[in-house]
C-alpha cells in the first residue's frame, strides 16, 4: 500500500498524471479521427513526448518521496524514447511516402 506522500509532491504528481493521461488519450484519438496517415503520425507523437514526460516526472516525484532520496533513473526512459523515436518515425514516413501518393501541398 502507498505510504503517506506529502501534498506538495502528491498535488503536482496528480496534475501531471491527469495531463499525461489526457494527452496520450487525445493523441490516440487522433489515430482514429485524422483523415490520413501523414496526419495521424503527428498526433501519436503527443503521447510519445509530453505524455511520457508528464508520467515520468510524476513517477520521479513519487519515487523520490517514497525512497527519501532523489530517484532519477526515469530520466533514462526519456533519453531512450527521445533517442529512438526518430528511427521509426523517419523510416515509417519514408515507407508511407513510397507506398502512397502524398496529398497535394
Amino acid at each position: 500500500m502507498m505510504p503517506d506522500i506529502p501534498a506538495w509532491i502528491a498535488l503536482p504528481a496528480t496534475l501531471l498524471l491527469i495531463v499525461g493521461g489526457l494527452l496520450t488519450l487525445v493523441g490516440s484519438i487522433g489515430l482514429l479521427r485524422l483523415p490520413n496517415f501523414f496526419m495521424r503520425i503527428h498526433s501519436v507523437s503527443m503521447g510519445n513526448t509530453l505524455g511520457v514526460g508528464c508520467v515520468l516526472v510524476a513517477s520521479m516525484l513519487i519515487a523520490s518521496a517514497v525512497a527519501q532520496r532523489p530517484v532519477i533513473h526515469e530520466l533514462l526512459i526519456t533519453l531512450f524514447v527521445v533517442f529512438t523515436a526518430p528511427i521509426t518515425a523517419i523510416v515509417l514516413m519514408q515507407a508511407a511516402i513510397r507506398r502512397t501518393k502524398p496529398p497535394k501541398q
Partner: protein
Amino acid sequence: MNAVLHASVWFAQLCFALAMVNAAIAMMRGPTAQDRVLALDTLYINGMLTLLLFGVRWTSFVHFEVAMLIALFGFVGSASLAMFLYRGEVIEP
C-alpha cells in the same frame, strides 16, 4: 491526499487503457500497413506508460526495468516493420 493521487493514477490508467483500445481499433482498421505499424508503436508507448503507473500505484521500482526496456528497444519492432514496408526487407545486404 493519497486518495486523490490514487484516483489520478486510476484515471491515468484508464486513459492509457482507452488509448490502447483506440490504437487497437486503428490497428484493426488500418487501412494501410503503416497505419498498423503506427498503432503498434502507440501501443508500445502506452504499455510503457501503464508500467510506469504500476510503479506509482504500488510504489515499487520493479516495473521500471520493463518500461526502460520498452523505451530502449520497443522501437526495434516497429522500426523493422517500417523498414520492411520501406524497402521490402528488414535487413539490407
